[in-house]
């Protein structure tokens, strides 16, 4: 019995040590990367941040700060497509962070993509999808609770609560559906200047349009090495090689 307890304890200690070593390694690597960045060695810093990102990914973890710092490195290395891609990922992790939003907007402005969203989309994207879902749930709860209570009780306050929460819930529910439709669309960022082709082949195409990096595209379908994409700002569709696009997915 004692031996068994000792064995369990040993295994536990082993795992604690392994986890703490892993954490210390990632932390020291992050600090090294920050130092490299401060020194202006952006390529070295980028390599280290990317290693941290991979390590976290293996453990099914994400970090807005790591994504953001990778975005900064790419920005310094003048790869605005990849820079925007990582800022977008950082925003998915930390929606209202001022630094992330500032840098993302700066890249969008520099690449002429600052008018991507129309007014409705700007309203819908005021909250993150999670925040919107929580808000809808709260109003949903107030609305239905007031309806249920109204079955047993009659009160003016309940009636008003029912009306106001009902209207707000209705509005947010519609916004939520619009947002859900947008969220389920697979989007990507063009990471380097490329051609938008009229057919999924480079040999047979007769039409092509030059597309600049850092443009956000909606991915409609895929065929072999190509994605069929829709460019919302320019309102055009076409085919782009898969290696020119990075899909925004955590």
């Amino acid at each position, binding site marked *: 019995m004692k031996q068994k307890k000792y064995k369990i304890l040993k295994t536990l200690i082993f795992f604690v040590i392994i986890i703490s070593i892993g954490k210390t390694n990632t932390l020291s690597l992050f600090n090294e990367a920050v130092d490299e960045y401060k020194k202006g060695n952006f390529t070295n810093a980028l390599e280290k941040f990317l290693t*941290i990102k991979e390590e976290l990914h293996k453990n099914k973890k994400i970090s807005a700060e790591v994504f953001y710092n990778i975005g900064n490195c790419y920005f310094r290395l003048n790869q605005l497509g990849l820079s925007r891609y990582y800022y977008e990922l950082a925003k998915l992790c930390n929606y209202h962070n001022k630094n992330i939003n500032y840098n993302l907007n700066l890249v969008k402005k520099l690449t002429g993509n600052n008018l991507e969203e129309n007014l409705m989309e700007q309203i819908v994207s005021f909250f993150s999808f999670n925040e919107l879902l929580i808000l809808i749930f709260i109003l949903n709860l107030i*609305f239905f609770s007031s309806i249920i209570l109204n079955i047993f009780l009659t009160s003016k306050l309940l009636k008003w609560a029912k009306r106001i929460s009902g209207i707000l819930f209705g509005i947010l529910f519609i916004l939520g559906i619009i947002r859900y439709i947008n969220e389920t669309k697979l989007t990507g960022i063009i990471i380097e200047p490329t051609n938008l082709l009229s057919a999924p082949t480079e040999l047979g195409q007769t039409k092509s349009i030059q597309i600049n990096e850092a443009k956000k595209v909606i991915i409609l379908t895929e065929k072999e090495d190509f994605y069929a994409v829709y460019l919302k700002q320019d309102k055009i569709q076409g085919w782009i090689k898969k290696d020119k696009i990075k899909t925004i997915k*955590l």
Partner: protein
Amino acid sequence: MKKILFFIFIIFNFYHFISAEINVVASVDKNVVSLNEQITLQITISGTTTNLPQPKIPQLSEFQVYSSGRSQNISIINGQVNSSITFSYVLVPQKIGEFEIPPITVEYQGKTYQTQPIKIKVEKQTSTQQIPTEKNVYKGTKRDLFIETFVDKKKAYVNEQITLTFRFYTKVNLLSQPQYSPPSTTGFLTEDLPPQRNYYTIIDSERYYVTEIKTALFPTTAGKFTIGEATVRCMIEDFDIDDFFSDSFFKRFFSTGKEVVLKSQPIEITVLPLPQPQPQFFYGSVGKYTITTYIEKTKISQNETVFLNIKISGIGNIKSISFPKSTIENILGKNFLVYDPISSLEIKKENYKVIGNKIFKIPITPLVAGKIVIPEIKFIYFNPETAQYETTISKPITLEVLPAEKSNLNIEKNLSKKEYQKIELEDIRYIFETFKAKRIYSKNLLILIQFIPLFSWLSIITYRTYRKNLLKDIKKYRATRAYKKAFEEIKKINFKDKNKFWEKIYEIITEYLADKMNLTKEAICIEEINKFYKNKISSQTYNELIYFWEEINFYRFAPSKVENLNIKEYLNKVISLLKKLEDETKKI
């Protein structure tokens, strides 16, 4: 309001419609040809509309005319549509002499546009164009298909464009899409030159279908380099028309074809170094360029950061154009803080030349107030056509810098320029020095919980409706609740008081039966039980019920007779009887 908007929309579209202009240009690849050669005539129609018309080709009796397809290019910049269609024709001269291709007309919106006439001189046949006889020719029946690669020049300067052309000639049906492996181009940067052209040509009185792919090559260093062999794999019919009556003709119906591999000859290229000495501030750009500079606003405050845009446009390897930050710092002097430039590219491929522009956006912050001039900026490039270094110069820009009320840049502290830069950079783009990692959560749970309040409300409504309906039918209500009620009462039985036990159990059963029959307790008797249950339940259960009911009725008046009886066991029997009754009546 809607009407006004509609009116504006109509006026805008009408203006757009009437203002659309087109441009028509015709060109030939050569003006002097021999009788056995061919001329490629290209008619390009361009304009600010996507609905471009087709040209009318005049009668050309001195030539055989074949259409070799068309290519379209559409570009949308800031919502402005520019499109062009190039119609390609192959002209095969029929006789010697000097001829003229008359103006080609295009009609658009009631206007007629026409090209300039083109003079063509057809000379005596010098030598017959041969199908290449190197190893790239497939030795099939009647030389059915072959490939060739060639370059526009075999000597070029470093970073000068060399156009590599690949052509695939075929006059037989292909059973599959040909697989093209481009040649190896070590020592060169490559850029695709779309569109791929397809046309017909005549060689040795045979008509071939040609697929042409062009690629721009930019040598990276001086020396001798080899463009490797291009390969095409395709499947052709395993069939010869000459053997119509032989077995091979019938093989066609069963054969899946045969694979043919075609290879081109490697090409040697001599890359010349750029002439020495190279001028100061030359960064390796080769081609022909112009420089322009602009700033979004010229009236700014002292600590405000604006973008100085340096746009270099022209023909050449646009991607390789560089403009180091140090050069800009030298030009702007001590009056500005200069940050890392950000560049953007726009590349087009027109007439198989790489053209476009590269814009360097340089964030600059004026350190002093007043009128500051951003001086002219020079860009030096090597022009391979003149074999000389040439300079393009931008115009100077005058900035009006207003003094800052509260300067972020604390000039009084005499900080160095690098320290200012660091402060400003941290303000603009802050790097996180710590990080938190979190698990990836699914949003599905948050979506699913949205339905909880709705389901709760629906459940309450359903239950209330059910109860309401139940209360309307008192007979059904009593019958439904009878079993549950009996059980609740059984749980309350006190086993210690045996005298009261029989009284209680009799009461429970009677009440159960009364509820089931919708009668009062007092009205329950053998006759009523018989009337209700006789034909509804099995005779065994019926007998059991009568037996128990009579026995319990007896025991409640003479409890001393059953003092030795285990009442818990007896109760279990009663419970099982009630269950049986419930189950059997439910089946009815």
